């Protein structure tokens, strides 16, 4: 599925963002609307390496808000299916305690959708 990429004004990245789903796109549009600078997947955090130093597990949060120094991961999975993502987040916090990251669950996105009348069906 190819998603539209509007002419974002608060986007601070270099390459045009390629969103994985409509919830990410709508979140980007809300951030942009309120003038909050944002980047899309700018950083990959290594979570685990094997004995040869090869990366075996990594995590790339969806958004980075430079003014807030905050990473935001958006998940549209059901609450019961986010265990794996929660585990990754826990690992990230253990390995990079200085990094601020927030997980936006499906429920949070639905709240945003209700408040801002987003179109999230995809």
């Amino acid at each position, binding site marked *: 599925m190819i998603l539209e990429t509007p002419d974002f004004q608060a986007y601070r990245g270099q390459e045009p963002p390629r969103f994985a789903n409509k919830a990410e796109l709508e979140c980007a549009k809300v951030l942009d609307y*309120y003038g909050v600078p944002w980047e899309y997947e700018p950083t990959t955090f290594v979570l685990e390496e094997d004995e040869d130093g090869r990366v075996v597990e990594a995590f790339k949060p969806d958004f980075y808000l430079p003014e807030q120094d905050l990473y935001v991961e958006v998940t549209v999975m059901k609450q019961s299916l986010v265990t794996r993502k929660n585990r990754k987040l826990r690992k990230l916090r253990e390995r990079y305690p200085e990094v601020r990251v927030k997980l936006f669950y499906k429920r949070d996105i639905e709240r945003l959708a209700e408040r801002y009348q987003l179109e999230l069906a995809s």
Partner: protein
Amino acid sequence: MRELGREIARDYEGKEPMLVAPLKASVVFAADLSRALPIPHELDFIELASYASGADTGGHGRIRLLKDLDAEIAGRNVLIVEDVIDTGLTLNYLCKTLSLRDPGSLAAATLLDRPYRRLVEDLPVRYVGFTVPDELFVGYGFDLQERYRNLPDLHVLQKS
């Protein structure tokens, strides 16, 4: 409400604050807070285009003022009176916009707070009525598609 009024009155004694209420949901709270504030103060209103109304053409825009303040705020002690703060996006925009007008001070009071949903943390939220769970409310100014604002009390919306 009386507690909030007393607390704000103590902090703003002699400063004649200006309460700034973003329309529409905060209007009932602002009216009650104003009446519970036993010190001289002004009341003004501002209205921002909601994301939904700004995006209803399917296009993409930026937030804009539908109604600006009537009064100048340079040097004034401004207290933004919000209905609810969750992500903080709206309040962040308001603070940035009003800061450009050189107020003497800028702070916020909110009836409801959902700090666990914050995307923008660095906000001058000084007075909080209630920290609430992740529920939808109607009544006391809160609406569902413009209905139920007139209900005198807050109600949790139960979805079937």
